[in-house]
């Protein structure tokens, strides 16, 4: 009985901001880092995401708090990207990249950074974080079909960029 109860407790929606933070802050920050490509921007995004979540409390549907946080983070990243279009050019960054044969992680990061915000989120979620299209669609609040299209368009652009 106790085991049943404790597993039910683990899966229940967060009831406090603390629970929400402790469960998700690391992955949200990692996602923010991948979306923005810069630590300072990722820190801002982490902060804006959780403040928005606290202000909008409670999460809209039980057991979907994770998708809710990803959606907030994605929307905040898109807003920020619209306010502040690409500050750093690929050329500038590749000067700072270590010389190596083939494609460097930095090449990939740069290519991702050049994507429009919506495609970037879709690409990071699916191709970098390995989430299924169903989850990508939930985070981006679009159909699974639209999520596939965004990932596919993004993949083509990234490939063109690093080839």
């Amino acid at each position: 009985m106790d085991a049943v109860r404790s597993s039910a407790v683990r899966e229940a929606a967060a009831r406090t901001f603390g629970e929400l933070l402790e469960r998700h802050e690391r992955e949200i920050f990692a996602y923010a880092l991948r979306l923005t490509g810069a630590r300072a921007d990722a820190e801002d995004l982490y902060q804006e995401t959780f403040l928005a979540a606290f202000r909008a409390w409670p999460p809209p549907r039980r057991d979907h708090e994770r998708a809710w946080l990803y959606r907030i983070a994605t929307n905040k990243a898109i807003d920020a990207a619209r306010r502040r279009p690409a500050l750093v050019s690929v050329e500038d960054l590749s000067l700072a990249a270590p010389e190596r044969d083939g494609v460097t992680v930095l090449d990939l990061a740069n290519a991702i950074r050049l994507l429009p915000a919506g495609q970037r989120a879709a690409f990071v979620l699916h191709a970098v974080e390995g989430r299924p299209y169903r989850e990508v669609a939930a985070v981006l609040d679009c159909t699974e079909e639209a999520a596939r299209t965004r990932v596919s368009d993004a993949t083509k652009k990234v490939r063109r960029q690093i080839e």
Partner: protein
Amino acid sequence: MSVVDVSDMRDRLLARAKREGLATVGYAVFDSPVGPLWAATGPKGVAGIHFGRGPSEWELRRLVRLYGPGIVPDPKPNAALFRELDQYFSGRRRAFDVPFDLRGITPFQERVLRTTSRIAYGELMTYAAVARRAGNGRASRATGAAVGSNPIPIVVPCHRVVASDGTLGGYGGGLDVKRYLLAIERAQVPPGGWPKRGA
């Protein structure tokens, strides 16, 4: 990127959440000689202490009912409590000065625990005596349950309440912990001066 240290970021986030009034209660874990103690402090003082690294379901529900969801990991509001706990466990403190918030329990439980909070360091009181002082001498069973539901153990010294037959009775943190706490306090009493009877 596999090890992500979010502590600085979290501090800044919580500072903003506090400024906006979104976060009102901070919790942290105190490593005591009787094991980890989870503690939460809010605007009205210490709101909860639990033996272990996290609160029980009952305690969390009580805190959310009292304060809403703005309960966050934050050691700062607990600093004074942790200092006093440290002094208590090393035998350098006989009473807690930090304010505490007993709301969120029934009026009877609150009367019982207020009475309990006035039992002096190193002294014992029976459940029946606590029941009498809380205004209901016939409710010693209910008093036992009320003492057992103490949301702020140690600070509200329910370990000083024992059974009428001189045995220890029960304790939320386990009887070993109750014995340990009483032993700290007994050491502070002059030789032979510690009451062993249950009255």
